[in-house]
């Protein structure tokens, strides 16, 4: 009989001790979670893309809850609806999100670009770039192993026909691909813009043409024909200033190479 009592006493004792420790611990070591922070965190999409400039949605929610000077419109994947909900929680004025989209500035598709050498090795752009600047004759353009596609959180990038293609309908404008591209081919532009220079080559006209049939030759025809003076040719490559561009499309029709593309952002897919 006493064996049973001892057994019961020991198990009860151990149980009571454990629960006492847990009670004390939860009393003295509670971490107060800001109610606003958890609310905001629930609203944020949770892609952890970093487009807001903070390391993940958790950090952005924390910054929003603790610092009133943090802007509510930084979440690009969440767009206007998220920023509106955040502003109602925080009781501040709502601001629209400037939606952005990533665009490829290269059209060196198979057939247009020349191969410098044949690359066999690790299937990664950054690895291929280490070896004589990549297999293509043009060292400015898309290498085509899809480092950007691997980084894309929403699978908006596909590699086919030799270069990466970004689907503007899926792209959330987070810009993760931009830092992955060893040649810096991808750029994030306002989603309202429709005109894109689809070349990154800074070589002089003849040299650029030898390397790729779709290369910008720096002829400045777009620069002279732009009514709003939004295009400048610097380093043999046309650059569009999106703060001035009004999407008139004069450059597109005047480009002799066809390396300025006019795309509707609802189906930006080239």
């Amino acid at each position: 009989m006493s064996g049973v009592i001892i057994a019961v006493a020991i198990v009860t004792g151990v149980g009571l001790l454990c629960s006492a420790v847990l009670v004390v611990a939860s009393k003295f070591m509670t971490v107060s979670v800001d109610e606003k922070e958890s609310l905001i965190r629930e609203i944020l999409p949770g892609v952890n893309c970093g487009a807001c400039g903070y390391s993940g949605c958790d950090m952005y929610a924390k910054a929003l809850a603790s610092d009133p000077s943090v802007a509510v419109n930084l979440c690009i994947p969440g767009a206007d609806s998220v920023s509106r909900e955040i502003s109602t929680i925080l009781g501040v004025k709502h601001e629209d999100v400037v939606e952005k989209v990533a665009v490829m500035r290269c059209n060196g598709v198979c057939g247009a670009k020349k191969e410098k050498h044949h690359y066999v090795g690790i299937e990664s752009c950054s690895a291929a770039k280490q070896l004589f600047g990549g297999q293509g004759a043009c060292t400015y353009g898309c290498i085509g192993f899809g480092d950007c596609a691997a980084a894309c959180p929403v699978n908006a990038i596909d590699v086919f026909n030799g270069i990466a293609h970004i689907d503007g309908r899926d792209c959330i404008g987070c810009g993760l691909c931009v830092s992955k591209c060893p040649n810096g081919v991808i750029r994030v532009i306002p989603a309202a813009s429709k005109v894109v220079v689809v070349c990154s080559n800074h070589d002089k006209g003849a040299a650029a043409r030898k390397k790729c049939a779709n290369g910008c030759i720096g002829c400045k025809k777009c620069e002279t024909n732009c009514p709003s003076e939004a295009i400048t040719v610097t380093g043999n490559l046309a650059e569009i200033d999106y703060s001035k561009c009004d999407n008139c499309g004069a450059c597109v029709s005047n480009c002799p190479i066809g390396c300025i593309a006019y795309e509707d952002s609802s189906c930006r897919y080239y």
Partner: protein
Amino acid sequence: MFKSLLIVLMTAVLVNNYVLKQFLGICPFLGVSKKLDQAVGMGVSVTFVMLMATAVTYPIQTFLLAPFGLEYLQTIVFILVIASLVQLVEIVLKKYIPALSRSLGVYLPLITTNCAVLGVTLNNVSDGYDFVTSMVSSLGCGLGFLLAMVLFAGVRSRLEEANPPKAFQGLPIILTAASIVSLSFMGFDGIIENLFS
């Protein structure tokens, strides 16, 4: 002394691998092995909890249960202690090391009453190990679990790309792959004793 500890460690990692040879902790093995980083997180958490659990249950066994002849209460007392220990660790981590808590946090509650953790503590007792040997053995078991998780995460990444017949898709092909990986570990039988002799 050192040699015998090394033998205990390597035996726990390779020969008596908890997942692949003793089939304990299959639930996290199948559930969290989908991605490599998650698999590593789970493996590290399990190793950590196994060490903590052994450190706590060994004195309970030696100083509380054995003197009263209550060894038959091992299972229930160990479950009780390990569960509250994991809860306590979670609270402490949340308070003092929030970064570690964020990376381990998802896995800790899952491990609370994991059979691999309980199995390690019970096996240490039944094998009659002393305290140091018990700790080394649980470290080995944890590392073995980590190894199995990492290996299987690699296998599963290949399975994702494979296109098995429809009847095999999903869990059946994963279980088949797990059994083949387990079979490969059977090859370690008898290796360790001869390695150090």
